[in-house]
Structure formats: structure tokens, C-alpha cells
């Protein structure tokens, strides 16, 4: 059997950070990722933060990957605006939360993981190869076992022969199979999870910058609460990427269980909000069916020609509406002036309209639909995030910071990964992988992280900034619901005491008060109704059907299902018929049956099924992530 020092399971931001950190410390490690290549199975909201807490320290991604990350990595935009909108029909009340967003940060970048992760993977694997390790993709880790005789840890996968390691770092996400198979923790229940669903929308670069009033170096984040949530606890988000937009919604899964609505429809509700509709609008072609009587041959020829012209129009327009596209085109010699390019675009449009039955009008362009589960660190972080010599990081350990408008997952996983890598490196040096030496050490390190503190208690300074931003909200709207508490929190002197008291009581007592339909729906709706400004939008976005969204995704379906229904008649499973983002469940004569083709592996149904990831390479592959 082959032998290696460390196995890292999962090639997301956390896993790759662990691999790179281990390599930085001169250690050999092999990273195993189930996707065909790294980055095909990762989805993020998403914004990546780098933080500088006042007390304590966290490890940021540039601490591991170096300054190169900031200079060269393909993240999207630096987010410099953070605005919360309360919505009610076509009225919006907006609160600028940028100071809240900038609390203790070095920077915040919007990201598309399918693009970012391959860069991280290259940086990590280059280093790792020097240490005799590397990244292996297309491999699904099935389980870990401990050999009684040799005391070796053996990794079993679907694709490779088993091999031995000394320690494991489990970065395999919210639906961690290692956590499940070893019994290290229970599966997360719906009270402990958020379901996130999103779409990536195309918007040419300069149009986007003008629309959001940002420059090349800036980016905007918009959050939404109110009627767009369709009565669920949580909110919508819109982040500007380079020339796309990430638009999505994150809701408490238990509020989804109480009031099940298909995730696809939740996205549609967001899209139909007038401000959002205006944000994402672009000039979009549609091809009408041919009314004229033409021969079948001619129909085919026209089809191919139209497709080609549309492709040319899209490409040229992308270049025209990008910051350096026009320059590039002129330098290439194809065009002499900006006007020439513009005129060519118009000519293509004209030709498409006149000869190929095309129409150009207002709509938006959806590129990719995705969904994932997010563990709420406040409710389900693992108190001892290890099992024997397996260390759990990030989502796999149920860790993430989610407080009101503060949404941080990626950076928490990265911090955990560094701590885990450091702990493992220490153990390798002493050849000691006992619980005491490895697991406990790691647990202590993670407890010291400021992120863990944020998962346990309210940060009063953060609260102050949040309240300052919201000072214009009429007291009566909020006061009528939270009365005393609000008064206490608003007063500078009393806040410290109040927060101390609150922290003594514990998050769990407070949370149901704060994270409620009132907070996320009723208050914002009232705000918008009373004080909001109406937004005008002259078009209705044409949202694709779920079938069309799924048709755009890339699948390599396995013939055998990776999920098995064990309780076909339970309440939970009945709800899955609505809550599966890709409608893989249907009800037939009272039993819930599964059609696994189309599964995007979010894990919404994991709690009451035998849930595994697909075999290596199989399943969905994201292009944006």
C-alpha cells in the first residue's frame, strides 16, 4: 500500500489553503477532490474577506498564498459599497451599511469560485509537488479506517487503491461524508442550516460600472429584506463581479420547512423586484420562429448562420463594453476607431433583425443556477472539531459567522485550515498524532480564533456601528417590537452592560428574537411602505423555467444514484418535493421518489436520506460557482 503523510479531503478554499500551508511548512500532503477538476463543485455567495480583528488574530488568505493573491488572483471586484434595502412591492428603503461591512477588514473581494479555485489550486499544487505531494481530482473519498495492527490510517476512495496516511484534514463541506461515516458529529438539522440559492447574471463591464456607479476598482453589494423573502427568515443579496452579477437568497432552512417554496421561485421573486430588475437589465436578443414558408434546407442554413452572427454580436459587444476591450480591438488592427466597432455591432443587429427574425429588447441574461447549504456557526459549530487524527475545518466543522448583515464563510474556513495545517505539521515533527497532541491542540487553537468568539457572543462595537447606520429608522417601527432592548442597545452607556448581559444569557436565547419573521420581513416591509421610494421599471424580466435552468448546467450523471431515500413517507421528505432546488423529488402514490439526474449536490435532503457525494467526476460541474 502506498504511503503519504497527510490527506486533505476537499478542494475548496479551505482544503487548498490547508494544502498550501502544509507545503509552506515543508510537509508532504495529497489533496483529494471529487470534482473532475478543482473548482467545478464549489459555490459561494460570494464575498471573500480578509480581516484584522482588534483582539486576537486570524489567518487570511494572503498570509498563506502571499502577496501574489492580492496582486494576481482572479477575484472579481473589491466591494466598496454595502447597502441594505427594505422592500415592499415597488418601494424600497435603503440603508447604507458600508461602515458595518468595513468593520475590521483589510479588504473584501467578490469571487466566482470556478475561476478563483483553479488559481489557488495551481499555487498550492506547485508548492506541494516540490514536497512530493499534490492535488488529485476526480476522486471521491468514501471513508477512513484505522488498521488495528499497524495503527495506520487508511483512506478508501471509489477510484483509487487504498493508501495510508498519518493525519487527515477534512475540508469536505457542510455535507461532510467523513463526519458522517466516522460519527464525528450528527448531520446538521434544518434549525442549524441556511439554504442558499443563486444565479449568475451577465452584464457587460462598463454597463455594470455605470449602472452601479462604481469605477473599475470598486464593487457594490446590495442586500434585500422584506417582501422579496416571501415570508422567510433571511435575505437576498446582489454582488457585482467583473462583468457578471451574483444574485441570490439565503434563508433559514427551518423557515423554509415551515413555509416551503421552491428555491427557484425565491430567486424569481428577487429578480422581479423592480430595483433588482433595473440593476440586471441588458439588451438581449430573441429569435422568433419563422413565419415565412421556406424550405427545410434554408431553415437549417439560417439557423446556423443566426447562431454564428449572434455569437459575433455577443463577443463584439462584450469587448466594446469592457474597459480595455476597445483598445485591444484597435491594437489588433481589426478596427480603427471606437465608432467603427459600434457601427459593426449595429450592423450585426440590423442583419439579425432583417434577415434572421431576431428581436432586441430589455431583458437579462442568466448564466448559471446553483444552490448550497450553509451551516450556521452560531448554532452548530463543532465544539471539538476532530475525530481521532482527522481535523475538521470550515463548513465541515459547522463553522461560519452569520450575524444579521455579516455573512462570512470563506474566510472562516481559511483561518481554520491554517490552524489545522499548523497542528498537523507540529504532529509530523514529533510523529505524535494522539488526540491529546493533535486534536486537542487544534481545538484550542480554533477556540482562540476571533471568529469563534463571534459565533458565541455579540460584539458590542459591531453592534454600535450597525445601530449608527440605522439611526434614521423611525423608532416606533422597531420600538414597538423590540422596545426595551432597542432602547438599551441604542444608549451608549447602557449598551456595554446590555451586551454583557445578553452574552451571558447566550446567543441561543436571543437568536429566536432577533432572527425572526419580524426582523426579516415585517419590519422591512413597514419601513419600505412608510418611508420607501418607489422604483420605476419599464420591463418585466423573463425568468427561465427551472427546466431551462437545469438544462444549462453541465452534468456527468452516474447510472447509480448517490442518494438513497430511506424514509419515503416522512414529513421532511414530503417537503423535499418543494425544497429540492432542482426538483429531483416527486410524490408518487404517497411515496417520495428520487430522480438523481439533475442533482446539484446541495445537501438540502441530506438530513433524512443516505446522502453521499457522487463518485469522482460524476454529478454537476459549475462554470461560475
Amino acid at each position, binding site marked *: 500500500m502506498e504511503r503519504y503523510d497527510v490527506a486533505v479531503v476537499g478542494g475548496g478554499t479551505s482544503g487548498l489553503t490547508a494544502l498550501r500551508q502544509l507545503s509552506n511548512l515543508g510537509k508532504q500532503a495529497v489533496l483529494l477532490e471529487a470534482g473532475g477538476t478543482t473548482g467545478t463543485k464549489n459555490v459561494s455567495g460570494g464575498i471573500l474577506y480578509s480581516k484584522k480583528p482588534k483582539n486576537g488574530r486570524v489567518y487570511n488568505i494572503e498570509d498563506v498564498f502571499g502577496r501574489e493573491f492580492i496582486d494576481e488572483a482572479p477575484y472579481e471586484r473589491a466591494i466598496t459599497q454595502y447597502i441594505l434595502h427594505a422592500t415592499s412591492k415597488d418601494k424600497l428603503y435603503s440603508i447604507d451599511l458600508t461602515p458595518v461591512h468595513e468593520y475590521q477588514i483589510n479588504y473584501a473581494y467578490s469571487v466566482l469560485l470556478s475561476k478563483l479555485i483553479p488559481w489557488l489550486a495551481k499555487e498550492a499544487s506547485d508548492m506541494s509537488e516540490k514536497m512530493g505531494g499534490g492535488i488529485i481530482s476526480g476522486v471521491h473519498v468514501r471513508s477512513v479506517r484505522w488498521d488495528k495492527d499497524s495503527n495506520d490510517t487508511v483512506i478508501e476512495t471509489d477510484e483509487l487503491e487504498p493508501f495510508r496516511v498519518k493525519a487527515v484534514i477534512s475540508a469536505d463541506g457542510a455535507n461532510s461524508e467523513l463526519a458522517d461515516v466516522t460519527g464525528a458529529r450528527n448531520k446538521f438539522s434544518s434549525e442549524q442550516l441556511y439554504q442558499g440559492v443563486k444565479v449568475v447574471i451577465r452584464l457587460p463591464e462598463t454597463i455594470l460600472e455605470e449602472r452601479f456607479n462604481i469605477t473599475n476598482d470598486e464593487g457594490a453589494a446590495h442586500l434585500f429584506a422584506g417582501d422579496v423573502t416571501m415570508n422567510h427568515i433571511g435575505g437576498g443579496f446582489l454582488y457585482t463581479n467583473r462583468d457578471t452579477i451574483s444574485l441570490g437568497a439565503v434563508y433559514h432552512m427551518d423557515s423554509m420547512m415551515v413555509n416551503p417554496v421552491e428555491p427557484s421561485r425565491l430567486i424569481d421573486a428577487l429578480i422581479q423586484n423592480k430595483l433588482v430588475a433595473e440593476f440586471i437589465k441588458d439588451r438581449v436578443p430573441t429569435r422568433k420562429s419563422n413565419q415565412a414558408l421556406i424550405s427545410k434546407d434554408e431553415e437549417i442554413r439560417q439557423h446556423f448562420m443566426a447562431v454564428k452572427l449572434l455569437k459575433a454580436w455577443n463577443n463584439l459587444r462584450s469587448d466594446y463594453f469592457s474597459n480595455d476591450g476597445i483598445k485591444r480591438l484597435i491594437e489588433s488592427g481589426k478596427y480603427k476607431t471606437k465608432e467603427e466597432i459600434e457601427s459593426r455591432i449595429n450592423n450585426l443587429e440590423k442583419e439579425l433583425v432583417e434577415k434572421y427574425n431576431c428581436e432586441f429588447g430589455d431583458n437579462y441574461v442568466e448564466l448559471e443556477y446553483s444552490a448550497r447549504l450553509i451551516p450556521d456557526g452560531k448554532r452548530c459549530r463543532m465544539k471539538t472539531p476532530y475525530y481521532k487524527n482527522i481535523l475538521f475545518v470550515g463548513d465541515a466543522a459547522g463553522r461560519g459567522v452569520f450575524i444579521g448583515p455579516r455573512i462570512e464563510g470563506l474566510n472562516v474556513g481559511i483561518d481554520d485550515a491554517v490552524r489545522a495545517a499548523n497542528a498537523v505539521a507540529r504532529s509530523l515533527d514529533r510523529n505524535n498524532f494522539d488526540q491529546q497532541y493533535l486534536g486537542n491542540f487544534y481545538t484550542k487553537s480554533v477556540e482562540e480564533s476571533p471568529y469563534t468568539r463571534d459565533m458565541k457572543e455579540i460584539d458590542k462595537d459591531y453592534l454600535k456601528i450597525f445601530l449608527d447606520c440605522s439611526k434614521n429608522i423611525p423608532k416606533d417601527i422597531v420600538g414597538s417590537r423590540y422596545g426595551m432592548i432597542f432602547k438599551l442597545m441604542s444608549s451608549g452607556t447602557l449598551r456595554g452592560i446590555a451586551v454583557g448581559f445578553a452574552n451571558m444569557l447566550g446567543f441561543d436565547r436571543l437568536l429566536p428574537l432577533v432572527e425572526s419573521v419580524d426582523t426579516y420581513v415585517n419590519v422591512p416591509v413597514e419601513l419600505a411602505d412608510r418611508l420607501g421610494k418607489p422604483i420605476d421599471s419599464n420591463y418585466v424580466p423573463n425568468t427561465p423555467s427551472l*427546466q431551462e435552468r437545469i*438544462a444549462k448546467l453541465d*452534468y456527468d*450523471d452516474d*447510472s447509480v444514484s448517490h442518494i438513497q431515500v430511506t424514509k419515503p413517507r416522512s414529513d421532511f421528505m414530503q417537503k423535499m418535493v418543494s425544497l429540492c432546488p432542482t426538483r429531483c423529488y*416527486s410524490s408518487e402514490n404517497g411515496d417520495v421518489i428520487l430522480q438523481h*439526474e439533475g442533482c446539484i449536490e446541495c445537501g438540502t435532503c441530506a438530513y433524512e436520506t443516505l446522502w453521499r457525494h457522487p463518485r469522482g467526476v460524476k454529478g454537476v460541474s459549475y462554470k461560475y460557482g
Partner: protein
Amino acid sequence: MNDATQNLESDSENLGKAEPYQHLYVVIEHEEGIPVPVSLEMLGEARRLMDNFNKKYSSNEKVVAVVLGDNVRHLCEDLIKFGADAVVYANNPSLKHYTNLLYTKIICQIVEDKNVARSISPNRSENYKKPRYMFFSADNTGRHLSSTVLAQLESGLASDINKLVISDLEIRHEHKTKGQLAKYEKTLEMYRPDFSGFLWTTILCLDNRNPAIARDYHPQSCSIIPGVFEPLTKEDQRTGTIIDFEPQISDDDLRVKVLSRSIIKSTIDFESCKIIVSYGRGIRDSPEENFKLIEQFAKSLNAEIGISLPISKKPYQTKDQRLLSYMIPERVIGTSGRKVSPVVYIAIGISGAVQHLAGMKESGFVVVINPDMDAAFRDECDLFIKGRMEQVLPVLTELIRKHMLTIEKRA
């Protein structure tokens, strides 16, 4: 050598100049003595072509089947009944299964063997060099075998042919005729559909008449697509001759060894089916009864049965073994199953999900039977029969049977 030679010769032929290239050799593919369907189809077409050839050119060239194998003489006898004038049979244990190296060598030995030629036509074989024409099957084996045989014989090969004509042509070609108009008699026109499916390309194998590059190119050869031509009906009275051939096999020829052969559980053969009948969740009201109707309908059309993806998940509780045996992934048509392109595709009780359509949109003629006019399938079919399968299928099956009988009576 053999007694039946008299049967092969007739007196009224023009003995004239004995030609160097004669006869149509058909390389027969078989599995342990059972001919694969295309072998009989090739033989049928060979027979038709040579009958016309002999009539047109007043000659007496033969259709010669070539069989390599181990103890498969009964096959040779059958081939005569299916149209072969002569069968050359090389019998040897090493020939039990096809290996390219050995088969190529022996087939070339056979087709260039003057003794064999003499057995086929005793009076006209003094100048015999090679066959005039050669047929192979256009399947895994035949495509490769034909390539290497023709490389050895240094002549021309056209593959995947679905139409053949023998004619005299006047050709002007820069290289072959040095730009002059030349007459090429008894040329085999070989038609093949191109990659787009729109065009028929005609390939010819022609001698170089240009003195600078003078060369004879025979046999004119092709590999033939299965399922295109009709085999002849087996006639027990047909006579012919079996010629036993002793192959020359050296140790070196045997260096490629077949270690094992395993037959894969027979896949449902959608490929050679002209009609496929598929069903979906429309059967849900009474799965067992509806399935029986579908089965009978498919039988009347000699069609294979496919299913939509949800059916493979066995969504209905049933004890009907037959129904259960059809609800398997191997029968699924769609992106996660098979892609088919039959002449006729009939979808019963299927709504027309995108992933199902992707599996059958290349079909020639699409018929949909569905009570729901809003089914997605309506935009992707040629014929939409609005109705419930319980009503439509029995009537349609009956009508088909009735018309079938009329056709058979007429034939």
C-alpha cells in the same frame, strides 16, 4: 477438385480474352458458424449486381463467398442457398476467432490463388490475378479487415456504402487519365452518405491510365453498411461449389493471441431497429394493462421498446414481471440513457422533457400519442395523435395488422 464445375459454366459465353480480374468476392463474417446479418445482406446485393452484370456484359462471373473458421462447413452450405456461386472455405483451429493479422494474410492468399480461381471458372482463369470486386461488412471487424486486405492487395477501398451500381463511365481526370477522356468499363460506383447526412458521395476505384503513373487497381472494394440491403430468400435448390483451401500459416502469423472473449449481457439493440416505441408516465392509471397494449402495438410494428427516465425508477408497485423487466436503465432513451435515431419513433404517454428529446431528436419520423395538447412534445414531432393510449393503441394495432396482411398477400 470438385464435381459441380459443369454447373458453373454455360456454353453460350464469350470465352474471348480471359481477364485478369474476375468475380465478386464477399468476405463473410460469422460468429462460430452463424452469419452476422450483414453477411447475408451483402450476398444478396452481390447476387443482384452480378446477375445484372452477367446479363449486360454477356459474361459468367461469379459471386464467391470467403469463409474462414473452425468447423463451420454448414455455414458454407447455407451461403450457397443464400446466393453464392462458390464458397472458398479455409478451415483451421487458429481461425476460430478473427484476428486481423492472420485473417488478412489468408484472405489475400485466397483471392490471389490461381488454383482457387480455376476451381471457380476452369476455362477462364489462365490470366487470373485478383478479384474484380470485393465486399466486406462495415462493422468493427469488416472495416479494419477490409483496410488491411486492400493495403496488401494495393487497391482501392470505399467504406460505409449504401448504394452500388455497375456501369461504364467516361472519365476525365488530371492524374488518372492525364486530362484525357477515357472509358472505364464495368466500374463499380460506390455511394456513401457523408458526415453531415445531407450528401451522397460516389467513390470510384480506377486504374491509372496515365503512362507516367500507370497502375492497375483491382479489386474495386467496399465495406457495406448493415441494414441497407435485403438478403435473398433462402433457396434450397440453389447449387454451388465449396472449395476447401489450405491456408499457409507461419508461427509469426500467430503472434497475436486472443486470450479470452466474453459476451456482454446482450444490450438492447436499438441501433438496427427501424421503429422504436417508447412509453412514459402516461401509463400510470393502469400500468399493467397499458403496458400490454404497448407491447402488442410494438410487436405489430416489429419495434423495440424504450422508456422515459422516470419509468426506470420503477415508480409503480407491480407484481407483473414482464412490466418490471422493461423498467430498467438499459431501456431509457435520453441524455442519461441511449441516443437513438430510428426511422420512426413513437412516444406514448411521454411529455417530452428536454433530456428525453435530446435522446431521440435525430429520429426520422416522430409520432406522439398523448391526450395532453400542451405536452412539450407537440413542438418536436411530425404527427401528434391526441388521445388516450387505452383508446388509440388497440385501434391502431388492429389497423396495422390488417394492412400488414394485405401487403404480405400482395408480395
